[in-house]
């Protein structure tokens, strides 16, 4: 903890002393507004819920989270500060966690800044605030999952563009794994056991998020996202350690 906090603080500071944070926040809020109102037709639908709003979160995260995550390690490797960071007397996991948590808190802030829509829906009608709250929590955990994938893949390369593209691809696979389309495509292949189809489907961010969006924070869904995060962060630490071995 003692080692992680300074790294976390430095990362957070790093977001706000550069234009990065502001550019990201503006784009995120603008895009989510556009999707909700234009594509989702939230206002016209006349329903007192935020379904149309939350439905777009996975798709927006799919591109915006890798954009946040790509610089986490690739940039440090490129500018040489990684050498500085890794020769400070801190454990590798503390560096990984500090950077990750800072990025997660930052996405949390972006998510929190969508609060006007929650106020609006309450002004217009009488929504189930429990469901909305659960959806916010679910969205936050899902963002954490995408971010852990992006952070790990950023440590693989010193090229931010490669890190971004890799992350989008992997995040996309985790997003769509549960769609019927994918399940059908996998099951038509010969010799694929049914268990595998189910396993692949169970890795879907979409289905876990959708079940939270129904208003019930099922422990299994939370555990799912937490284990995805833990898995990718562990892979992240291992990647850093492997790079030490040259």
């Amino acid at each position, binding site marked *: 903890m*003692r*080692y992680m*906090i*300074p*790294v976390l*603080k*430095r990362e957070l*500071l*790093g977001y706000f*002393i*550069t234009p990065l944070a502001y550019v990201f926040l503006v784009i995120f809020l603008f895009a989510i507004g556009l999707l909700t109102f234009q594509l989702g037709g939230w206002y016209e639908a006349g329903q007192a819920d935020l379904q149309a709003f939350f439905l777009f979160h996975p798709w927006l995260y799919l591109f915006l989270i890798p954009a946040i995550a790509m610089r986490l390690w690739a940039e440090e490797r490129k*500018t*040489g*500060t990684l*050498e*500085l960071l*890794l*020769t*400070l*007397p*801190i*454990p590798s996991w503390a560096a990984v966690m500090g950077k990750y948590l800072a990025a997660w808190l930052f996405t949390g802030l972006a998510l929190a800044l969508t609060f006007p829509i929650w106020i609006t829906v309450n002004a217009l009608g009488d929504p189930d605030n429990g469901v909305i709250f659960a959806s916010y929590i679910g969205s936050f955990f899902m963002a954490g999952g995408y971010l852990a994938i992006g952070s790990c893949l950023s440590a693989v390369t*010193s090229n931010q563009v490669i890190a971004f593209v890799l992350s989008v691809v992997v995040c996309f696979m985790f997003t769509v794994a549960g769609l019927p389309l994918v399940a059908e495509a996998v099951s038509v292949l010969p010799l694929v056991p049914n268990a595998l189809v189910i396993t692949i489907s169970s890795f879907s961010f979409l289905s876990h998020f959708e079940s939270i969006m129904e208003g019930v924070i099922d422990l299994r869904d939370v555990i799912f996202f937490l284990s995805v995060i833990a898995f990718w962060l562990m892979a992240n630490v291992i990647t850093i350690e492997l*790079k*030490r*071995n*040259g």
Partner: protein
Amino acid sequence: MIALVDLLNTSVDVITFGASNLPSMDDTFLEIRGLVKRFGPFTAVDRLSFSVSKGEVLGFLGPNGAGKSTTMKMIAGYLAPTAGGVSVCGHDVGAERRAAQASIGYLPEGAPAYADMTTRQFLKFIAEVRGFRGGAGKKAIDRAVDRTELLYVLDQQIETLSKGFKRRVGLAQAILHDPKVLIMDEPTDGLDPNQKHSVRELIKTMAPEKAIIISTHILEEVDTVCTRVMIIDRGRAVADGTPDEITSRSRFHNAVTVKVGLKDARFVREALDALEGVERIDAVESSEELKLTLFPKDRNALIIEEISALLTKTNWDVRALYAEPGRLDQVFRSLTTADTVEEELSHLPKETTPAEGEAEDASDDEEEASFE
């Protein structure tokens, strides 16, 4: 063969491990045993062993790509060695990395720093990571800032600083916790003469209390700062000694140069040719004078006495007479192979990303020519 080498390395490892548990000698702050680093088929550091004690300033010399930076990275705990070990103040860098790193100040090549932070923010971060809290942190930062003369740029963003200041920010970061071992990769590279001078002075002030390693391309720096020199070539130490010892290996060691006006050149030449102890005479003639450099037969003989005695007896137009200081650059060239650079380049395509440092080393080989 490879299996044999591996076996050898494993045994080195075992010995190393045992040794690290022994109490190290009080003043030996840094000990390196059988250090090897391979990147794929390329051996960057090849069985390097040495130790550095308190008060020593060890200068690493060597062509680009000789393994200087790689060695420093392994000491600092950034790269793990393929075989062998490093112990810092009794802590093995492999087994107790963080304890070792707490006693090391490290200035990586190019002095990287978080460019978007101000000097103050950056040093505060370093102090916090190094475990300083509150007043102690402020004190440590003040001392480092004072020593590196950064007071006036404390609130400036690091990316807006000049090269000299950036380097000093890197230095401040490295000495902030007053480490016993200080590792600096080209601390004066790219600085102007005044800045170089102040960095060297800083190193000299800190030297009595610390074990210091610097790598450099600037041979004159070795004379002014280092108490000990190690020349590294292809990952191996090819010379290790005090600057005087190393320069005495020069073929110019104890050579004598005489400059004489052209009018008397012939007589002088004849007289000098007759000397017993002289092996060979090199002559360079200019429009006004003849410059003769005499090499003794016995490398340790002081032929200057004989020559000066001979020349003072006459009234020839002798304009200068001096003993040649040994030339470090000449020793350097004779010990390090000229084809290293080419060989380095031929290895490049095979190298993987971790060897980035080496690749950069090889790419800026034009600088090689500019020895001062």
